């Protein structure tokens, strides 16, 4: 992703090979060779360590805006004569596409459903249930929002249970449909009427259950709350009403990994607290692509920069935008440290002065962000006082020379 890879600062590994041929005494020539290799190895290691290493903090730089201005801005990272106390690294915006796992999941479930249907037709009801998978499949599918698939999954479970003659269990499974607020799928038309009856009665019983107040909270805000595959029903912390029974609650937040809980709603109220984990760089890249990648309007927003910092593994990230205007460019800059925006700046630049203006903007960001110290005031500079002292000495010497009178000695005589 990064356009420039920093050279390794470690010295090359030194292989001493002292353990070879332990059973045999080494000849004098072999010993000399070993000593020579040892000496060469030590010299190599020493010289490598003596090489100056770049200890400047790294600053990842993102450039966007008018295409004709980008080369000028990108040159910032290639020229170190600006004197900025950072090692600039030019980076590209993440281009991660939305993970195809979400697309593969429905196909896999569809395959399971078809397999279960085949076993049902063959009256292999136990195998039918096995083909539909365990509770985890239902949880994951629902958390991903595939409510219709989950409804079909429950329907075929009911069918298999009825086929096995387990009417009570079938009723309970059908009740889940009502609890989750799912519609009876069209597949019911191909199943025997008995299955249909159990399905309808169970769903009605589930929908008639008492309601429980869910109080959802998260350690990270803002976080979007999803309930049973219905996305963004509220922003945590918030309260939801749900029928008594099992539900799937999920929260999503920028820069955090999604968190899913299977809860059993019961009683008048239930606390549902989430603890989230930081998003991996890959997830952050997907989130950034999904939320901000489609438009340049909010690329420099706090959320965008936080995701970019994570996605690009950039503890210090600067974003420079040059927007073309009638007589030049409007240069905007943002600096994020550890994902948090700490400085912003905006300047106008004539085309011929874009390089210098960008350099100044970057310096401004680094000073605001306390990455570098501002230049000390004139009176705080040692050189200033030295100059003042020298000037005072020169002025004093000049004055003394002008005012100095040669001592006079007068001899008196006849």
């Amino acid at each position: 992703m990064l356009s420039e890879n920093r050279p390794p600062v470690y010295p090359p590994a030194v292989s001493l090979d002292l353990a070879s041929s332990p059973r045999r005494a080494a000849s004098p020539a072999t010993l000399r060779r070993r000593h020579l290799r040892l000496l060469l190895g030590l010299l190599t290691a020493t010289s490598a360590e003596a090489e100056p290493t770049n200890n400047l903090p790294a600053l990842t730089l993102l450039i966007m805006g008018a295409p004709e201005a980008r080369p000028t801005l990108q040159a910032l990272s290639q020229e170190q004569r600006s004197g900025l106390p950072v090692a600039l690294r030019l980076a590209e915006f993440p281009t991660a596409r939305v993970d195809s796992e979400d697309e593969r999941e429905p196909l896999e479930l569809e395959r399971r459903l078809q397999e279960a249907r085949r076993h049902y037709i063959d009256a292999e009801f136990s195998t039918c249930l096995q083909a539909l998978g365990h509770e985890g499949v239902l949880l994951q599918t629902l958390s991903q929002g595939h409510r219709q698939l989950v409804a079909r999954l429950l329907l075929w479970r009911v069918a298999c249970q009825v086929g096995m003659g387990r009417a009570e269990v079938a009723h309970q499974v059908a009740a889940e449909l009502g609890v989750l607020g799912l519609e009876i799928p069209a597949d019911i038309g191909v199943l025997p009427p008995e299955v249909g009856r159990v399905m309808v009665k169970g769903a009605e019983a589930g929908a008639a259950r008492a309601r429980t107040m869910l109080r959802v909270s998260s350690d990270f805000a803002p976080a979007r709350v999803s309930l049973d595959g219905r996305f963004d029903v509220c922003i945590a912390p918030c309260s939801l009403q749900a029928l008594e029974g099992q539900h799937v609650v999920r929260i999503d937040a920028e820069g955090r990994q999604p968190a899913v809980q299977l809860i059993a709603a019961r009683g008048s109220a239930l606390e549902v607290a989430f603890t989230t984990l930081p998003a991996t760089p890959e997830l952050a890249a997907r989130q950034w692509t999904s939320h901000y990648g489609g438009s340049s309007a909010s690329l420099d927003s706090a959320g965008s920069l936080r995701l970019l910092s994570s996605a690009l593994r950039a503890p210090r990230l600067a974003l420079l935008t040059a927007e073309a205007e009638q007589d030049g460019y409007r240069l905007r800059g943002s600096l994020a440290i550890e994902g948090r925006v700490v400085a912003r700046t905006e300047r106008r630049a004539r085309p011929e002065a874009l390089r210098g203006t960008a350099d100044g903007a970057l310096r401004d960001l680094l000073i605001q962000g306390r990455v570098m110290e501002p230049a000390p005031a004139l009176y705080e500079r040692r050189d200033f006082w030295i100059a003042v002292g020298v000037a005072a000495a020169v002025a004093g010497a000049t004055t003394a020379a002008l005012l100095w009178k040669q001592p006079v000695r007068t001899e008196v005589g006849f």
Partner: protein
Amino acid sequence: MGVLVLALLTGCNEVRQVRLTFGEEGEGLDGFLCREDDGAYLLSRAVPSGGGPVPSSLVIDFVRLGGLPGCRSGQLIQWCADHDCSVLPEHRVCLPAPLPDITGLPRPEARQQVREALRSLAGATVASEAPDEFIIVRATATLQTCDELQASGGAVPTMTEEELVGCAYSCPALLDAIEGDVYLGFDTLTEQCAQGVRVCASGNLRWRP
């Protein structure tokens, strides 16, 4: 380096020469031609019995004034009545200066002879470093020897009035700044000026009636 340059600069003193003079025609010698009340020259009081020059000494004093009074004798005396006018002991110089016997000579001839006698002092150094303050230079002729009159222990011996034979003084001057010669003279309108010589030669220029 700077200190060295400063030392070199301060080490280079400008040496100026100031000449004492009684005037081109000896017009400043009136104090050497004063007569006693009996009409005799003061110089005639010590003429050797066999004749010849009067064995006298010329004492050069620098008198500190503590300020800058006027030049006339009355102004000087009035100034010194209120100020500490005193001889600078370290600057007293005494030169043997035999003066001629001018007994019976008319005043112009007497002046000429005294002038000729004092011409022998030409080139004599009175001070190698003049005081850096306002002073008057006073030349007093006395019959006392220089040994008697040399300053010692920071004090100057008082000259005996009966031994005085002449006196002249300058205007108040700062010798380091003066341009030209320093004129020595005696401010009197009459030849009967023995009393003026005594005032001139007194240690503190005090008027005495």
